[in-house]
């Protein structure tokens, strides 16, 4: 019995910590994402990272009106083997960062990760040159639908430097919310410093 308790206690400790997981304010101003990325927020967001399922520890997720209405994914440097979305099971893998990804594959990594978030009919459009700080990358538009058919729009920027890739991804319903928060999301992208 004592052995069983000893085995169960760590799990209980983790569960109790998870129960404390909460949404915290991300105030206007500089925001550090891990050790390799920084952005500046033009207004207060909510940091919903801890309540998002399948989040990698190098990924922070911010929102203004809630995760269904706007999401801003900010990553630290993702190394080979890292993912944007954690797999639910070994038999249901999600896209991984590879050491030798082409620019096309880096965009594919983002769009396939969006599909792994259970969005449907994910497509990318208008890839164009972009910079995250000094790192050259690609920016592109995203369109998708929720499983229930709600139209989603997004914009993403992905850049590689020092063998790691950095992603900023903004997603929101096409109706009202995408346009309403886009200027703020674009300002965050423009403020990014990585590597």
């Amino acid at each position, binding site marked *: 019995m004592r052995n069983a308790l000893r085995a169960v206690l760590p799990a209980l400790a983790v569960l109790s910590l998870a129960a404390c997981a909460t949404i915290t304010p991300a105030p206007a101003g500089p925001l550090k994402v891990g050790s390799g990325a920084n952005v500046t927020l033009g207004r207060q967001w909510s940091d919903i990272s801890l309540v998002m399922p399948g989040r990698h520890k190098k990924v922070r997720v911010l929102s203004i009106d809630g995760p269904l209405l706007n999401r801003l994914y900010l990553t630290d440097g993702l190394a080979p083997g890292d993912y944007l979305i954690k797999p639910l099971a*070994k*038999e*249901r*893998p*999600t*896209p991984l960062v*590879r050491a*030798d990804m*082409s*620019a*096309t*594959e880096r965009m594919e990594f983002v769009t*396939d990760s969006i*599909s*792994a978030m259970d969005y*449907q*009919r994910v497509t990318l*459009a*208008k*890839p*164009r*040159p972009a910079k995250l700080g000094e790192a050259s990358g*690609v920016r592109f538009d995203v369109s998708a*639908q*929720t*499983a*229930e*058919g709600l139209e989603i729009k997004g914009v993403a920027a992905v850049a590689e430097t020092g063998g790691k890739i950095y992603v900023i991804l903004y997603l929101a319903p096409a109706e009202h919310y995408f346009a309403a928060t886009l200027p703020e999301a674009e300002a965050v992208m423009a403020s990014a410093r990585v590597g």
Partner: protein
Amino acid sequence: MRGSRLALIAAAAALAVLPQAAQAQRAAGLRPDSTSLEGGIWGSADKAEAAARTKADVNHDPALNAYVRGVTCKVAADHCPDLRVYVLDRPAFNALVAPNGYVEVWSGLMLRSTDEAEFAYVLGHEFSHFAQNHTLVAYNAAKSRANVALAAKVAIAVVGVAAASGATTASEAQSIMDATGNLIDVVYLAEIAAFFRFSREQEAEADLLGQKRAAIAGYDARSAAQSWRSVMAETQASDFKRVRESRSRTSVFESHPLEAERIAALDKQAPSLPASSDRGRERYRAAIRPHLSAWLRDDLRRRDFGQTLHLIDRLAAGGEDLGVLNYYRGEAYRLRRGDGDLGRARDAYLAAAAQPDTPLAAWRELGDIRKRDGDAAGARAAYETYLAKAPQAEDAWLVQDSLTSLDKGS
């Protein structure tokens, strides 16, 4: 305790003799009274159908939907007006029918059916669930089993308490109560197992009826078992051990029979059905051809590349659509990135490039792989071909960047 054993045996026997899956076919055009039990079940299904109409993955291609409806009506015959068929772009091998005649056909099923005869058998299977009122029958059977199980649990509890009260020591009484609790658990598990056994019986019945309906509609009856052989082979091709081993042994808690059992039953019935050699392979392929590319892309997102490669091999067996199929074969290898996979991807893209129907992206991917291999001349040729064929592509500047980096030797 002898009494509780008797109660358990009685409960197990009662659960075993409750209604079987077989049921007379419903009449065409029959809509149940909305105040009846069946009417309530239909009402719930109506709501699910209304929600499904707006789902993101509903395929609205009129030609594909007309084709699927046509095959459905061939096997459903007089019941055709009772059914509403929706094609959903979902990569799993699946179809389902709701008790109100709402039918879902998933793209993963269409991608995996070799011909119209295999597809018709699956539609016949689903229609048989509807025609035999399987949902209502299962509901009534579960209700009857629940009543029997409840009576058994009460009887066991009463006998257990009586036996415990006659015990001479506290520990003996505790042992009797523990045993009583265990017996009640056994009845509970037997109830669940009986539910799944009933489900397996309904599936087995729908298999045989589906094969029969497809044969009566003029299709080759042997194709029904072939569809399950393909499913088994694809399962064995999975990248994941757990998937490969998933259907190798049966369990009392399985809702469907094992594929091997289904094949044996279908093979046994086939010779007794009307003979035909019509498989409708060409017209089936013509119907799904416009969607091959999108459905294969969806399948790649499952990231079980062993299964996708097996599927592509089957689709390519007839020598059709080799540009598209070799391109996606290359994509599967490129995404899997196992030992030697990039070389296999390069060969597949090259094979695709020799076909008239290859997606233009094959040249871009070929260029990227050759660039990784240090084959600058080969990469340049592939990139230049891509730009020549797709000068207006949105990513043309990216490919031009890659060409520039080749010039700089980086």
